[in-house]
């Protein structure tokens, strides 16, 4: 299931829904992305970030997320999967994205969850503009994310 929304989400409620009434699930892996209050790899060296605005491409975003989710379900035997991604203005500490994968075995759940995050980071049309102490700044794509996504190329 995929959802693109402005509103916040409740991690516990979402994960509970994914496994409710099921007893064939051995493991549920999830990842929640949050707005971090600093830029780059190092808190001490980075500029402060008070908020960010997430822009997206309505229509293509939903299409890409559905394709990415379908691809994960082709690669791993998942019992359930979920992608929720927010857009709009988010302040530091707010939730941005939730990805969850349930499977009979934990390796499949973990691998699919990482795959979804890596693909989403590099191929879902979202763009972040951070409000930093030095003014607004478009986040640049990170070569590290391309390298992480390249792990999954077959």
């Amino acid at each position, binding site marked *: 299931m995929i959802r693109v929304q402005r509103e916040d989400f409740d991690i516990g409620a979402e994960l509970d829904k994914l496994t409710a009434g099921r007893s064939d699930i051995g493991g549920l892996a999830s990842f929640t*992305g949050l707005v971090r209050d600093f830029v780059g790899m190092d808190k001490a060296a980075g500029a402060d970030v008070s908020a960010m605005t*997430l*822009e*997206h*491409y309505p*229509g*293509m975003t939903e*299409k890409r997320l559905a394709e990415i989710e379908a691809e994960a379900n082709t690669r791993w035997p998942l019992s359930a999967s979920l992608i929720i*991604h927010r857009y709009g203005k988010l302040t530091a500490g707010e939730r*941005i*994205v939730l990805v969850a994968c349930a499977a009979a075995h934990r390796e499949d759940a973990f691998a699919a969850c990482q795959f979804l*995050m890596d693909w*989403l*980071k*590099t*191929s*879902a*049309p*979202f*763009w*972040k*503009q951070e409000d930093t102490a030095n003014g607004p700044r*478009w*986040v*640049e*794509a*990170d070569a590290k994310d391309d390298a992480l996504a390249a792990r999954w190329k077959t």
Partner: protein
Amino acid sequence: MKILYFAWLRQRIGSAEETVTPPPEVTSVGALLAWLATRGPGYAEALKDLSVVRVAVNQEFAQAGDAVKAGDEVALFPPVTGG
């Protein structure tokens, strides 16, 4: 042909969406980008480094050699940074 701009491409070009009628020889993504770059200083500035410009045609990622035609929805945006 509908053209959509996102993130800093939208800001530099000063428009989120416009409908254009390129000349008939513009039949590829590459030719479209070259033609758009001639439409004004904002366009030229936004499209001067195509290594940071991504294109989607009808909501699918596209390369310079891919075809474009009247009626297509073409989106121009920087490398994505969600998640």
